[in-house]
């Protein structure tokens, strides 16, 4: 699945509303197990999956648990798996699916279930507590900081993250290996660390933490995080791999070590590895 594979929406819109019935096959259950339930409704024009889920709620199952907020792809609350693909329900248009076949909706698989489509994502909030805070260097004499736009373009991409945790969910390191949750931070936090490491003002260094506790070595760069990111952050190419390269410099590259030594001796400013 690739974000770019989505068919352009115009085709559907210009042809008018999708007609007929749609069937949602929603997983309902809790920690004691569950099952699929089918809900058949009339299709309406321009709807996203979350709209239909809401109509299931108001017309058929008032207690259907689903987490959502902004319904605009900005808060990252309504993450789920639609036909097995991790997505935001609010940004998945019904017109993306061929009519007739039921659309399956299941909760994110990686996190413990609370109920129906709602999972316990506290894993992520616990990891967040381990990230060292941003620690800027001294200010300019006028009491402000100066940064050029080109200094921050790269990290502004990382700051686009809406914490939908779809990347964490799709990452097989914890999706398929529960035990690794104890030693692995996951793509969302590598993005966070990348933003800190590449920040022109940040003074602390997390490379040791990344290697030893955050488990960056567990990532085998199979890029699923990038594929599912609704903000189209190039998680693997721009965050994880550059961090891996920095970890290599700090741990596995005697030449880089030597260069740094020499630069220090000659008193050159080492703004880089």
């Amino acid at each position, binding site marked *: 699945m690739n974000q770019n594979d989505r068919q352009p929406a115009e085709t559907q819109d210009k042809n008018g509303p999708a007609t007929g019935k749609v069937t949602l096959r929603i997983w309902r259950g809790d920690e004691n197990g569950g099952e699929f339930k089918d809900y058949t409704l009339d299709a309406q024009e321009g709807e996203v999956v979350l*709209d239909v889920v809401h109509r299931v709620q108001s017309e058929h199952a008032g207690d259907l648990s689903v987490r959502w907020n902004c319904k*605009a792809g900005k808060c990252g609350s309504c993450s789920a798996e639609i036909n097995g693909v991790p997505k935001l329900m609010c940004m998945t248009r019904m017109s993306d699916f061929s009519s007739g076949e039921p659309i399956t909706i299941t909760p994110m698989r990686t996190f413990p279930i609370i109920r129906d489509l709602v999972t316990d994502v506290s894993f992520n909030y616990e990891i967040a507590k381990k990230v060292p805070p941003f620690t800027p260097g001294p200010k300019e004499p006028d009491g402000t900081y100066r940064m050029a736009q080109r200094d921050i373009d790269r990290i502004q991409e990382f700051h686009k*993250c809406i914490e939908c945790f779809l990347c964490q969910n799709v990452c097989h390191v914890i999706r398929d290996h529960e035990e690794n949750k104890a030693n692995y931070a996951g793509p969302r936090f590598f993005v966070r660390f990348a933003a800190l490491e590449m920040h022109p003002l940040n003074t602390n260094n997390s490379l040791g933490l990344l290697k030893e506790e955050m488990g960056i070595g567990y990532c085998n760069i199979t890029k699923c995080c990038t594929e599912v990111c609704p903000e189209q952050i190039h998680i693997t190419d721009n965050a994880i791999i550059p961090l891996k390269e920095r970890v290599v410099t700090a741990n596995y590259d005697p030449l880089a070590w030597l260069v740094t030594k020499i630069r220090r001796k000659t008193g050159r400013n080492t703004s880089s590895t």
Partner: protein
Amino acid sequence: MTDTTSTPEHLTSPTLEESAATEQKPAKGPKMSHTDLPFVTHNFDVLVIGAGGAGLRAAIEAKLQGVSIALLSKSLLGKAHTVMAEGGIAASLGNVSDQDNWQVHFRDTMRGGKMLNNWKMAQLHAQEAPDRVLELEEWGALFDRTADGRILQRDFGGHRYARLAHVGDRTGLEMIRTLQQKAVSLGIEVFAETIVVKLLLDSNRAICGAVAYERSVGDFIVFTAKSILLATGGIGRSWQITSNSWESTGGGHALALWAGADMIDMECVQFHPTGMVWPPSVRGLLVTEGVRGDGGILKNSLGKRFMFDYIPPMFASETADSEEEADRWYTDHAKARRTPDLLPRDEVARAINTEVKSGRGSPHGGVFLDIASRRSPEYIKRRLPSMYHQFKELAGVDITKDPMEVGPTCHYMMGGVRVDADTAASSVPGLYAAGEVAGGMHGANRLGGNSLSDLVVFGRRAGLHAAEYAKSYQGDPKPDPGEIAKAIAECTKPLSKDHTAENAENPYKLQDDLRKTMQSLVGIIRTEHELTQALEEIEKLKERLDNIAVQGDKRYNPGWHLALDLRSMLAVCQCVTLGALNRKESRGGHTRDDYPTLDDELGKINFVIRQKGTELEITPEPKPQMPPELQKLFEEQH
């Protein structure tokens, strides 16, 4: 921190013999009885309700004062409605226009609010916003930069100079993430997906705690607290066409009202001029004012830039009267006057409304917002990435090629808890309010960008003073167990009823009816007749609320959550309608068809709403007088 999970002696779980057993009839499924619902108690000095920009900033400040503090979030941490703020945060940093200063910002804010603002709040806001922005940067926020490496600022409606520090069109996300990470690094205790249903008062009518429930498990939690800070945001969910999420149910407004706090300016609801109008599923979704700030223009179906026909006298001297001058202004602020597309939001929203009503609207009942013909695709994608994405994904429109269709959408609540400007204290001892839930700062209409700055300026002040109040608090707060029992019993009522019974009300249906009522009767243009009708409708809905019954049990049950939220929605809608009925003039966001002009006498008063018993009482009260030195700012010629 004296956090306990065992129940302290003075808070033993209530036995509820007197609970409304008559209303419970045996249900088909396994229904719970009230005694299944013990609660845990947590003791804190300060309780912050709401984890958006204001709540987070307040929590940070309170934590730094060394008190024990809990932060309650209706959703998960970092999902608050603040993420939806797009355009930027207003602060007179003067990085783009060095003529800018706090006085100009103050003046813009007051004039934008049609002088109904609490002048002291507007002054503090204008003075302190720059420091708060720089502080955000120090905590890791990455604002877009000027060529010399300072924070870039953009033009926005009603602001004389380019004043909005921004990050593309996702400034709110940047702000909430920065504050969230700061709060986490300070070790602030967060109760996510925890909703307060009642504030508890002691025998002196002062704050002593709150009753809340956890959405995930449906259990009740009692917090004892010396002071409580409301930062619960807005009320927009009660309208059909709104930019607000489900969270904006006016929970904090209602809690304050029920606790006896003074509510002001409740009639002042802002309709943002540019919400999406198509497809139906996204109707109301915000289109940032930044589109116009960056060169977008409004056109009607005849292709005419109609805003030139709607320049009010108050802004005539500083608004361009020809397209040529307006276009020149984008590149030369000194020699040209600003485009009328960037008039304050109330003016633009009314203009769009009139154009559509006069039959000059777009195919889906809005007007056209065109940036495609005025800026290059690269520029649009760089400056407005979320807008590009939003229209592409949700409406199938490429905004670099085609104009957007936009129309007014319920956006922001100017009114709210009456607070002291310096301390953010409400009229209830120990109760503080900051952000959208507080009233007064924005008067009758809020300028774009003033919301984010409001959050951090008054969030900080509220946190500081709530902490100081808690420090000087004598003894321990002791809530009345009877009140707790009553609150819990009331909340569980919808669960204990049979939802298949004939008179059972479906919460979703009730919500739909309320939203329809507010949209059609208390919308952007109001009349006495419709407002009176709306009050009657709300009374009927309140009666139906008694019969609400929900499917399922207490665990993550959205139907039940909605049933509880409806109580606040109805209470707040009643206040809005009552205020609107009493303010017999048109001012800012409040437009009366039957009183279409400003009334100078009404401009000197706030309508204050208080709950007395089960009734609402509304009184006109003179608003604070601006001192002469500030008054002068409005007499000078600009």
